């Protein structure tokens, strides 16, 4: 690696360590440095820089024009490095990215133009163009991509998940010149898919025998967080009242009353033997015994307690109402939530792609 190439790569590596906020600038900077490296014939460093620029995804990624420009120069660098397969792959990618962008004979060698022409001949002329980051309301909003072709192929377009599973069929038919494919942000069941990586995949219909190819537009789907209210917990058992009086509690109330009454009546004879205790104690003892009996019956042993049944019923119904109300509000909020769709750079694979 020459000194200049080393300097270019070193500068790029340093820029890698910068905060993510500068990622968009970094992708553009890599692109500029890569093109500059091509112009001074520092092909190895230039290839590295351009690949780095094209690999940036998400918000910091190059726009379609810059991505096409970067791919064009990458193709030229690979031709200069005698990496024909890589050059052809870059040329095919360029055809998909922007069919209007092509190497001009003023700036590029005849070999570069020849590779590009070969790629154009062998690449299905199907393109996909997506808007920038789009925020839609699932169900009512739409995300539109434009499929273009000059050969009127029969195609199907679907949205797939990261695992390749089809999330939603979007289009099935012929592309005459161009067709807008719309996705309302819902899956086949009418639900909003979870955030993650998806793709719009365009493939030729089975009856199209002009060769197998797959055009893929990566999508990153984000769902801005929605504040939902946690469902109220079920009332704890401690809040419920017994619906039937139990004997255990009743006896537990009666026994202290009877014991205390007995003590009041009996103990004076033990404490003051031979003394004639007054009958006043019988009044107190009797009162305590009556209190114990009253406490016993206040527990309604073995009987239904309608007031408690009603109280518990109201408690349960109130909780159920609160759960239903909270669920309804949460569902409303989730329905109103938006979906952010960030398309990436499209790619094309064919049966003869290296």
């Amino acid at each position, binding site marked *: 690696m020459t000194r200049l190439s080393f300097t270019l790569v070193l500068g790029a590596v340093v820029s890698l360590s910068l905060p993510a906020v500068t990622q968009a600038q970094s992708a553009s900077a890599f692109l500029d440095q890569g093109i500059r490296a091509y112009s001074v014939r520092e092909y190895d460093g230039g290839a590295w820089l351009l690949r780095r620029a094209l690999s940036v995804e998400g918000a910091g990624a190059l726009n379609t024009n810059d991505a096409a420009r970067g791919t064009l120069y990458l193709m030229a660098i690979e031709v200069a490095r005698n990496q024909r397969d890589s050059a052809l792959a870059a040329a095919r990618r360029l055809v998909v990215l922007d069919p209007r962008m092509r190497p001009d004979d003023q700036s590029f060698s005849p070999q570069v133009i020849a590779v590009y022409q070969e790629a154009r001949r062998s690449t299905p002329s199907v393109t996909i163009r997506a808007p920038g980051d789009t925020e839609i309301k699932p169900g009512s909003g739409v995300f539109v991509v434009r499929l273009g072709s000059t050969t009127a192929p029969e195609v199907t377009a679907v949205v797939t998940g990261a695992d390749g599973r089809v999330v939603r069929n979007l289009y099935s038919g012929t592309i005459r010149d161009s067709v807008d494919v719309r996705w309302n942000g819902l899956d086949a069941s009418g639900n909003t898919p979870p955030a993650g990586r998806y793709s719009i995949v365009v493939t030729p219909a089975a009856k199209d025998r002009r060769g197998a190819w797959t055009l893929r537009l990566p999508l990153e789907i984000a769902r801005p967080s929605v504040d939902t209210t946690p469902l109220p917990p079920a009332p704890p058992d401690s809040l419920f009242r017994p619906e039937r009086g139990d004997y255990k509690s009743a006896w*537990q*109330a009666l*026994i*202290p*009353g009877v*014991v*205390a009454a007995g*003590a*009041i009546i009996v*103990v*004076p004879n*033990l*404490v*003051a033997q031979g*003394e*004639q*205790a*007054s009958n*006043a*104690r019988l*009044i*107190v*003892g009797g*009162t*305590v015994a009556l*209190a*114990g009996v009253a*406490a016993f019956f*206040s527990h309604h042993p073995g009987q239904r307690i309608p007031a408690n049944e009603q109280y518990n019923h109201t408690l349960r119904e109130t909780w159920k109402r609160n759960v239903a109300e909270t669920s309804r509000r949460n569902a409303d909020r989730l329905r109103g939530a938006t979906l952010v769709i960030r398309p990436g750079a499209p790619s094309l694979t064919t049966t003869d792609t290296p």
Partner: protein
Amino acid sequence: MNRALALALFAAATLPGAASAQHWNLGVFGAPQIVHSHIDGSSSRLTGTVFGGEGTLVGERFSVRLWYAQGNVAEKSDSGLDKRLVVEGEALVGLRATQWLTLWVGPTARAYTLGETSQRWLLWTGRASARGTLLPDRMQTYVELWGALSGSVGDPSAKAGGRGADAGLELRLSSQTPLWGRLGYRIESSHADALRETVESITVTVIYGFPQ
């Protein structure tokens, strides 16, 4: 003296526990009293009423209880000769053995004037008091039994003994108030040589705060 010192030390040790009190209560009471007094074979029956106050500091394990009463008792066929001014008091420290059982120890004193002379009973007592709930936070009963560990009466003092009991019902006056009412029956019998006194009381108490 040694006993007093030991009690003072015990009280000092328990007070920090009581200081971190879970709760306390104060009460005032009136108590009709019947005194059966037997001196050298002669008996007399005196009646009257005492009034007083009490307070309890209840800690996690230990409690402190003070009780004081004062009043007059007299013979029914009162000739004016046997009318007594009565003063009673207790100072107890307690150990909460279980949720419902507390063990107490401390002095209880009863003194009365009889004409120009006075008589004083001082008993060191050990007590056990139990409580049972009839309706949670509304109504409960209690029973307390005690016996004298040692005691003295008169001047010059003679050795004395005794035992007693207290039991009754405590009722919260309303669910919105911290006031409780207590109806209790209290009996104590003290004796020394040819002297024996039995005191019966029905106490009606109003208490501020949750009774222990």
